[in-house]
């Protein structure tokens, strides 16, 4: 715990310096709420406010998405990133959503947060990209059960699978929290908002919800950085990563080992690319 | 403004009645006027000048339009092609069945306008809400004093309701018509220039006058500046507001500006009332 406190002190110091010497316009980090076991994203504009930044086991929220809110980018945006956020930032850079030079990355090695479901299968505890590192890198252990839940699911019969997912999508209230929090959901206009065009019906039933859920999983599947934010924010606690990881598992099996956003020069998204030697099942 | 809302059917206000398109007129390249009648040949409802109707192309969508005219057994709505629904409406033919519900909203202050000079200022399709008011004045000419009608559009071919503009309204007693276009064309001999500029050239006197102003936001903005320069007060200026609407009965939530719902508290507001509302347009 004391090491965490040290990191928080160092984070505040670095943040104050960055703001003082005008390296960044503001810093996106975590700050206090009314509740000791929750933090909220904060936007620190002045050095004197750097003490509002927090670093503890409750810094759960992903922050990468907020970079997209700033359309002007007059100055660099400072942003606190953990392993998952760093992969998301990389992904946004590859997808031409942000430019590397517009962000200043404050890396924070992370031992996992209070949300065990979100952080349970984390393979990259250290930021894979950063401009400054707070604290020391932590030991990373390979994840052996990345696709365990997917494999279990695959063993079900067709009808069992359908019953399972129908149950899931029956519960969905389509609040779009999963989409809005997802760092790689960066479309300017989502298909799910185009009711008038007809990509998505606005009625809430398991069929329309499935249409939304499956399309979203498929659309972000090849760019998913496995931050688990969708699952964390779901007010109905739906197992959304179970759908996303199925895509990742198949991608790994069909197109080779794949983890998204590990570097700035990462490969194009799997579905935005092809290889002549890809397996062919449609002959 | 006026409190007397009229809903002509006593049943569920969210359920439209099936109506028939009995006449379509191409006003301009992108504006058509549609005439609607119930299946038993009656007027769907009796709107007051300024009131709205919710027109539904079953299965395609619903949208709110101002009722631009009415007869013994029909009402008329003028529609500019600008989105999915209006696109589909422009494809419609005489005889097609649609859903119609209303009337919604308040209406122009007919009583308050009595005994005053009136200045109607309209731009583009926004003559549509003014038209029933002007025709009301025409029918009750003795109740009102001098009338000026200033109307402008992008080009001569975009002028709507040409029959009224050039035939019916100019023959009204004690009435001056001022038509202008942003850009002239061959064969057009009227004034060329923007509405606010033309308005200042015409130099209306604010004395005992009520201004009814409808048009695109940018025109409203510059017209207001011009009017205030001429000495008009915001109490003298009446306009209509527009927001996205779904229910029309003040429930669904999206057409609010501050605590007012445009669908029931509007669409007609005086500038003085609008000034009280948060700046959200």
């Amino acid at each position, binding site marked *: 715990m004391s090491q965490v406190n040290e990191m928080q002190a160092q984070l505040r110091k670095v943040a104050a310096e960055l703001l003082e010497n005008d390296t960044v316009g503001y810093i996106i980090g975590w700050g206090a709420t009314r509740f000791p076991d929750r933090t909220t994203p904060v936007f620190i504009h002045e050095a004197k406010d750097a003490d509002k930044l927090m670093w503890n086991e409750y810094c759960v929220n992903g922050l990468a998405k907020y970079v997209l809110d700033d359309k002007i980018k007059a100055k660099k945006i400072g942003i606190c990133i953990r392993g998952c956020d760093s992969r998301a930032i990389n992904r946004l850079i590859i997808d031409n959503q942000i430019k590397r030079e517009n962000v200043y990355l404050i890396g924070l090695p992370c031992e996992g947060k209070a949300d065990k479901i979100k952080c349970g299968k984390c393979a990259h505890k250290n930021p894979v990209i950063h401009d400054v590192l707070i604290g020391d890198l932590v030991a990373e252990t390979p994840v052996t059960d990345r696709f365990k839940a997917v494999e279990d699911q695959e063993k079900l019969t067709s009808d069992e699978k359908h019953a399972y997912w129908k149950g899931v999508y029956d519960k969905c209230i389509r609040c779009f929290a999963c989409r809005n929090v997802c760092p790689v959901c960066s479309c300017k206009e989502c298909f799910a908002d185009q009711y008038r065009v007809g990509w998505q019906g606005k009625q809430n039933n398991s069929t329309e919800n499935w249409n939304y859920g499956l399309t979203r999983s498929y659309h972000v599947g090849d760019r998913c950085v496995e931050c688990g934010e969708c699952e964390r924010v779901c007010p109905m606690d739906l197992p959304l990563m179970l759908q996303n990881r199925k895509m990742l598992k198949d991608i790994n099996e069909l197109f080779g080992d794949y983890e998204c956003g590990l570097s700035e020069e990462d490969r194009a998204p799997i579905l935005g690319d092809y290889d002549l030697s890809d397996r*062919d099942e449609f002959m | 403004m006026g409190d007397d809302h009229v809903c002509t059917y006593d049943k569920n206000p969210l359920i439209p009645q099936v109506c028939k398109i009995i006449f379509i007129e191409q006003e301009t390249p992108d504006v058509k006027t549609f005439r609607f009648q119930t299946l038993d040949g009656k007027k769907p409802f009796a709107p007051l000048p300024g009131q709205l109707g919710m027109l539904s192309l079953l299965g395609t969508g619903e949208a709110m339009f101002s009722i631009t005219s009415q007869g013994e057994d029909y009402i008329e709505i003028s529609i500019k092609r600008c989105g999915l629904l209006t696109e589909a409406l422009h494809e419609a033919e005489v005889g097609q069945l649609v859903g119609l519900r209303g009337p919604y909203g308040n209406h122009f202050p007919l009583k308050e306008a009595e005994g005053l000079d009136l200045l109607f200022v309209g731009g583009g399709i926004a003559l549509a809400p003014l038209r029933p008011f002007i025709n009301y004045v025409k029918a009750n000419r003795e109740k009102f004093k001098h009338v000026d009608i200033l109307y402008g559009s992008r080009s001569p071919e975009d002028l709507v309701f040409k029959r009224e503009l050039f035939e019916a309204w100019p023959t009204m007693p004690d009435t001056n018509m001022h038509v202008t276009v942003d850009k002239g064309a061959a064969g057009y001999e009227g004034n060329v220039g923007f509405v606010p500029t033309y308005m200042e050239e015409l130099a209306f006197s604010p004395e005992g006058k009520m201004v009814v102003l409808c048009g695109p936001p940018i025109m409203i903005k510059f017209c207001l500046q011009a009017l205030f320069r001429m000495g008009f007060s915001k109490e003298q200026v009446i306009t209509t507001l527009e927001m996205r609407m779904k229910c029309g009965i003040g429930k669904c939530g999206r057409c609010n500006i501050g605590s007012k719902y445009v669908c029931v508290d509007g669409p007609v507001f005086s500038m003085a009332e609008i000034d009280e509302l948060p700046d959200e347009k």
Partner: protein
Amino acid sequence: MSVIKEWEPKILVFTCNWCTYTGADLAGLNRMKYPENVRLVRVPCSSRVNPQFILRAFMKGCDGVLVCGCHPGDCHYVSGNYFTRRRFMLMQRLLEYNGVDPARFQARWISGSEAAKFRDTMIRVSKEIKALGPNTKFREDWYVKEAIANEPSK
């Protein structure tokens, strides 16, 4: 006397303009017979087919969907069908994972000269889907009712 009509599946086939559609045309010219329950939608390229078309098709009452395009290497647009290949290999697995029988969504390469392959594929797919019966999974209620109404009485 009423004739009890046998249940026929609704099968939607997306055919690429340059190969499969031509192949289907050739099949027609040669008077080859293929099932009437197959409905073709011509698309410029098999990669034009948005995976959501498939979801929507199932939702709106199709019992099977097939995407057909040029053989790899033969794409009119050089690389379109390579994208198709990746896209639908993943889509097929994802649909199966969601409980949709894999036979209900298939993809095949059929060239402009393969009229017989077109016919055989249509016959085979139609037979497979007929054996599976009406799809009720993730189908809109309205179309489920329709499917039940048209189902053969056992």
